[in-house]
């Protein structure tokens, strides 16, 4: 064995990674080579000194206790739980967002739309004065009549449903309405009206 090989073996020996037969070879080399033996002894003593410093006195962390570390942590556990749920249920989150946006836009639509709106057949025969929609006596409206944001005064006939949204109605004794009379002035029932209306309209087509 040459000294170069012995050097690499002695490190493996210190790492406890040398096979028994190799150890024997190394020891044989030490017996004939005092330089390598001395080198190995120095390495061994270096290692002992290094391990020795591990147990050496070291002051504890000054004014630095667990509580301080805990106090420095960010408080965000609650938010994390919420985020976790969102991450785990993307479909529900998207659906909820969609309905929220729909709901808000429908509500704002209901709130903003303050203009008088009349829907139905024979509109030219109706009398409109300001926000008053009058079905004059003797007139027969052939179909559904819808009045939004106004007052409906009926003296004649309506051959269908009369719906008043966000307004009032005044039915004279001569009035005749063959269908249902509906008055809507709450957001929820208006929404319900919109939805049922949408479905009935779709099913008619």
């Amino acid at each position, binding site marked *: 064995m040459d000294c170069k090989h012995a050097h*690499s073996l002695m*490190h493996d020996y*210190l*790492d406890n*990674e040398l096979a028994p037969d190799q150890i024997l070879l190394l020891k044989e080399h030490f017996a004939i080579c005092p330089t390598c033996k001395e*080198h190995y*002894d*120095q*390495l061994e*003593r*270096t*290692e002992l*000194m*290094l*391990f*020795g*410093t*591990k147990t*050496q*006195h*070291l*002051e*504890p*962390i*000054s004014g*630095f206790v*667990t509580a301080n*570390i*805990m106090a*420095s*942590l*960010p408080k965000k*556990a609650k938010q*994390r*739980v919420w985020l976790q749920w969102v991450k785990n249920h993307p479909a529900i989150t998207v659906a909820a967002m969609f309905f929220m946006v729909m709901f808000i836009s429908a509500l704002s639509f209901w709130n903003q739309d303050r203009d008088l709106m009349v829907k139905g057949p024979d509109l030219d025969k109706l009398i409109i004065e300001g926000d008053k929609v009058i079905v004059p006596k003797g007139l027969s409206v052939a179909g559904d009549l819808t009045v939004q944001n106004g007052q409906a005064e009926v003296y004649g006939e309506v051959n269908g449903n009369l719906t008043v949204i966000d307004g009032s109605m005044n039915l004279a004794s001569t009035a005749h309405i063959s269908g249902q009379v509906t008055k809507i002035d709450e957001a929820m029932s208006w929404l319900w009206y919109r939805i049922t209306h949408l479905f009935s309209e779709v099913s008619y087509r």
Partner: protein
Amino acid sequence: METRLALLARKGDQRAFAEIVELYKDKIFHLAYRMLNNRHEAEDVVQDTFLRVYKNLDRYDENQKFSTWIYRIGTNLCIDRLRKRKPTYSLDAEMNDQEGVDGYSILPSDDRTPESELLLSETQQLIRQAIESLPAKYKTVMVLRYLQDLSLQEISDVLDMPVTTIKTRVHRGREYLRKKLERKL
């Protein structure tokens, strides 16, 4: 056990995290103190390590040893600091104007108090200085090997390097320290 604590802490259990801090604060402090040789910076590293552990609990892989994970975070923070601190000139280069004065003699000295200085024997101070003078990549493995008592395999896990590389570095570090401490041996 640490793995279970980590999983509890992940669910938001503050007491479990406090337990982790209690178990590791001294180990991380000693690691950082040996690496940086500065008490103040070592305390900063301890603080940063636990902050990072806390923030990344979600990313902790429970198949991995918790100690390996926390040592990796602590070691990386130390290496980052050493890198930032490292001057542009080499420590071994002699200064032009002063004969025989090299970079080691102008390194910022540690903020140890005189009392604690007395408690350290001359030999131990020599060893400290010798470790301090090691280049960062050797210093890391030597501190983990001898002062934290990690096995070569554990060091390889912490540093995410092959065991053969760790072995080479331990061997070279050992030779380097042997030369530095020659007079004392």
